[in-house]
C-alpha cells in the first residue's frame, strides 16, 4: 500500500492539511495565525485539484488551482488590510476580544 504512490496518497495528505488548517482557524486567538491557517486550507484544496488533474490527465484542474491562488491572494490582502484597521481602532489582534456584535 505504501508504494507505488497513487492518487489516494495525495488525497490523504490534502485531507490532513485541511484538518490542520481547520484546527488552526478554530482554536487560535491570534488573527494573523488564523489567516495563515486559511492559506493552509486553500493549499490543501490546491493539492487535491492538482492530484485529480493528474489522475484524469486533464489540465482543467490546474486552471482551477490558479483561480484558487488568485482568490487566496485577494483574501490575504483584504484580510490583512482589515487587520491593520482593526489594530488601529481596538489595539488588539486577538479574535475573542473583538465581540462588539456578540450579545
Amino acid at each position, binding site marked *: 500500500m*505504501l*508504494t*507505488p*504512490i*497513487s*492518487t*489516494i*496518497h*495525495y*488525497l490523504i*495528505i490534502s*485531507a490532513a*492539511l*485541511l*484538518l*490542520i488548517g*481547520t*484546527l*488552526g482557524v*478554530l*482554536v*487560535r*486567538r*491570534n488573527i*494573523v*495565525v488564523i489567516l*495563515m*491557517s486559511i*492559506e*493552509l486550507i486553500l*493549499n490543501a484544496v*490546491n*493539492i487535491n485539484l*492538482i*492530484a485529480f*488533474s*493528474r*489522475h484524469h*490527465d486533464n*489540465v482543467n484542474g*490546474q*486552471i482551477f488551482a*490558479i*483561480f484558487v*491562488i*488568485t*482568490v*487566496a*491572494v*485577494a483574501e*490575504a*490582502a*483584504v484580510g*490583512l*488590510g*482589515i487587520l*491593520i*484597521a482593526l489594530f488601529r481602532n481596538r489595539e488588539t*489582534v486577538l479574535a*475573542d476580544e473583538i465581540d462588539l456584535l456578540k450579545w
Partner: protein
Amino acid sequence: MIVTIFFYAFALLTLGGGLLCITRRSAVHSAIWLVVSLLGAAGLYLQLQAEFLFAVQVVLYIGGIVVLFLFVIMLVNLDEAAKQRQFNRQWLVGLAAAVLVGAEVVYFLRSGMKTFQLPAPARTALITEGNTEKLADVLFSEYLLPFEIASVLLLVAIVGSVIMAKKRI
C-alpha cells in the same frame, strides 16, 4: 523508489510545517513554518507534473503572500498577544470538531480507496508540449471570461485593502 522517498519527504514538510505553523507562540515563527509547509506543497505539485503551478506557488505564495504577512507582523505590535494565552476557551470543542471531520474524511477515503489506487496514466502529449503552453492554451481560450473576472477581483482587492489600511480617505 526515488519518487516514493521524495513524496514522503515533501509530505512530511507539508504536514509538519502546517502543524508547527498553527502551534507556535510567535507569529514570525508561524510565518516561517508556513513557508516550510508551502515549499512542501510546491514539491508535491512538481511530483504531480504541474511545473507552472510549482513556480507560481514559490513566487506568489512564498514570495508574495508570506512577505505580506511578515510586513503586517512588523506593522502590528504582537508582543502583547504573544504573552497571553494562545488558544481560545473553546479549543476542546474545536479539537473535537476537527477530529470528527477527520474521522468522516478517513471513512470516505477508505470506502473510495479502490477507485484511486491506480497510478495516474502516463502523460504523452504534455512531454512534447510542456505544461505551461497547455495551461496557457486552455486559460486563454476556454477560460477567458473567468480570467478577466479574476483580474477585476484583484483590482477590487487592491482598492479595498488600500482603503482599509488608510488612516483618512
